[in-house]
């Protein structure tokens, strides 16, 4: 049974320069314990998708359409109070920059205890105990002492662990992780990836891992959705998408990752830049950068087609034969 079902989500930003369709018809679903990698370049709308789920899109942005069904209830229909009761409780979020997510003038203890007591009527002592065990779970040494510290007394990696511990505090059903390892150095990055994967598996928490780095989700995600210009252009099981990408954009992303055994080879790059979201081309948004572009691509946008049973694609000229279309 799916825990989260996003249907045709539309989040638009109403700016002076016009309406920016940051998220334009995104659909995906997650079952309990599943890890979904949401991949895309900066400005592809992947973070906005994450914030839309928590209803934390800042003005001038607004969710204008679609449904977000979380455990059978449409989040858009909840009152602010009901939504607040879900946030941090059933749906938690981890942010990109650990240096900015913790309040610099409050002790870790304050910031953790309030997250527990926002949802559970427990004593300060009980909330504190829960905080200590959450810190221990994410690998923070001597958590009892560290609880009294301020954020600036932690390194970047440790701060992100604290943020992850806060997300875990109430045993959520879903965690939205918005590039949580991007700001960290590689060694810490892989440690945290391994820990989060283990925690999600142990607790059966579903995870949306937003990243621009395909290499990060390769070992982590069950499924991958690749976003471009506010739309999901390709999605499917991680192995299938990575070994046989169907969309030229996915292939471009894969080609730009340096890897072993490719020494001396030139990295392929995707020509051009991510499009201006306020002035998208008429047809396929990727057309101006695509090597396989045709006149059809420039005049009309491709619809979603499903193939191989579990894969879907938005492209007129797929790289793999679309056999056994379901």
């Amino acid at each position, binding site marked *: 049974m799916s825990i989260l079902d996003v249907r045709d989500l539309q989040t638009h930003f109403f700016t002076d320069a016009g309406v920016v369709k940051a998220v334009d018809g995104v659909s995906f679903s997650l079952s309990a314990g599943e890890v979904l990698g949401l991949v895309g370049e900066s400005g592809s709308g992947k973070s906005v998708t994450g914030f839309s789920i928590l209803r*934390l899109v800042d003005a001038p942005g607004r969710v204008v359409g679609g449904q977000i069904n979380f455990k059978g209830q449409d989040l858009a229909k909840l009152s602010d109070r009901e939504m*607040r009761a879900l946030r941090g409780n059933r749906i938690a979020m981890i942010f990109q920059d650990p240096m900015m*997510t913790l309040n610099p003038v409050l002790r870790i203890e304050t910031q953790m205890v309030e997250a527990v007591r926002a949802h559970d009527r427990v004593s300060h002592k009980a909330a504190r105990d829960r905080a200590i065990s959450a810190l221990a779970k994410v690998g923070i040494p001597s958590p009892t002492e560290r609880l009294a510290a301020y954020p600036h007394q932690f390194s970047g990696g440790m701060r992100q662990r604290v943020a992850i511990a806060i997300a875990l505090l109430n045993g959520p059903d879903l965690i939205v992780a918005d590039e949580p390892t991007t700001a960290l150095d590689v060694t810490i990055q892989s440690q945290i990836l391994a820990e989060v994967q283990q925690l999600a598996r142990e607790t059966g928490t579903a995870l949306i891992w937003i990243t621009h780095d395909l290499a990060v989700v390769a070992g982590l995600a069950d499924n991958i959705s690749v976003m471009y210009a506010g739309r999901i252009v390709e999605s499917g099981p991680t192995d299938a998408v990575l070994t046989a990408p169907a969309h030229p954009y996915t292939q471009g992303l894969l080609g730009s990752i340096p890897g072993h055994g490719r020494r001396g080879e030139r990295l392929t790059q995707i020509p051009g830049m991510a499009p201006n979201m306020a002035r998208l081309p008429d047809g396929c948004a990727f057309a101006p950068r695509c090597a396989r572009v045709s006149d059809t691509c420039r005049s009309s946008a491709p619809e979603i087609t499903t193939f191989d049973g579990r894969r879907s694609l938005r492209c007129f000229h797929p790289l793999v034969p679309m056999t056994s279309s379901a």
Partner: protein
Amino acid sequence: MLVFLLRRLAQSVFVLIAMMIVVFFGVYMIGNPIDILISPDATPAEIAETMTRFGFDEPAYMQFLKFVGNALQGDLGRSFVHGESAVTLILSYMPATLELAALGLFFSVAIGVPLGVYAGYKADRWQGRAIMTGSIFGFSLPNFWVGMLLILIFAVELRWLPSTGRGETVEVLGMRLSIFSENGLKYMILPALTLALYKASLVTRLARAGTQEALMQDYVKFARAKGVSETRILLVHVLKNIMIPIITVLGLELGSMIAFAVVTETVFAWPGMGKLLIDSILTLDRPVIVAYLMMTVIIFIFINFTVDVIYTLLDPRVRVKGEAS
């Protein structure tokens, strides 16, 4: 930290010396206090005798050197008019001003911070705009006029509060204070409000700007993602972050409230240091004027130190830097 404090102290001494020179010669040039102190029909011999008694016959620089010599021993001279030591005289007027400033400070925080935070939270709504427009009145209306208006409304028309004087006082720690008696407090409300109005508008603006900025920070968004209520976000996450600039400004403003409550004290006939200063200027009571301004400088220095200490309490990052150096 110690080096920093010592350097600050040394700077302060220079300010004190400069202040002493400017004020002493400034008041010296205004006129001869003898003309005011002695009756017009005194004989030349009497005048000469008085001049010698106060030391006015000596050249200005000699008078100054004597003054400095005495000042170094903690003696800032005797009031020509009251015959008392200038410092004792000022100290006896000080509690009235201090308690007025304290209540004024309380009012400006109690009014300014909630209004400012609310205005920042509702920055784009009419509530926020209304508060901002209102605050313009707060710091553009002249003090004396606000004082008179308050007297007109609350003392003359409504008859709720007394208009002038100090009311009942209670002795606390050797000082006569009216803040602790109900009757005395009634007398303080109008002058304290007058004094607070400008600061309250200032605090409102600062709090609004700070709140707007803090609300855009990731830690606020993260707190929302934790499901923390908006009230708690404003009262804990935002408030603690915006208090640092507010306390800086209030510290400086407290100094000016204590030192320059002259206008308000005059309007409300409040027997504080400001009124003493005005009276002393009118009678050219040089020792009191000089002593008053010197004490003002000392108060400012003291308050700046206190503000630095409060910083370290509010902002843990400052604390660590302090420990490291």
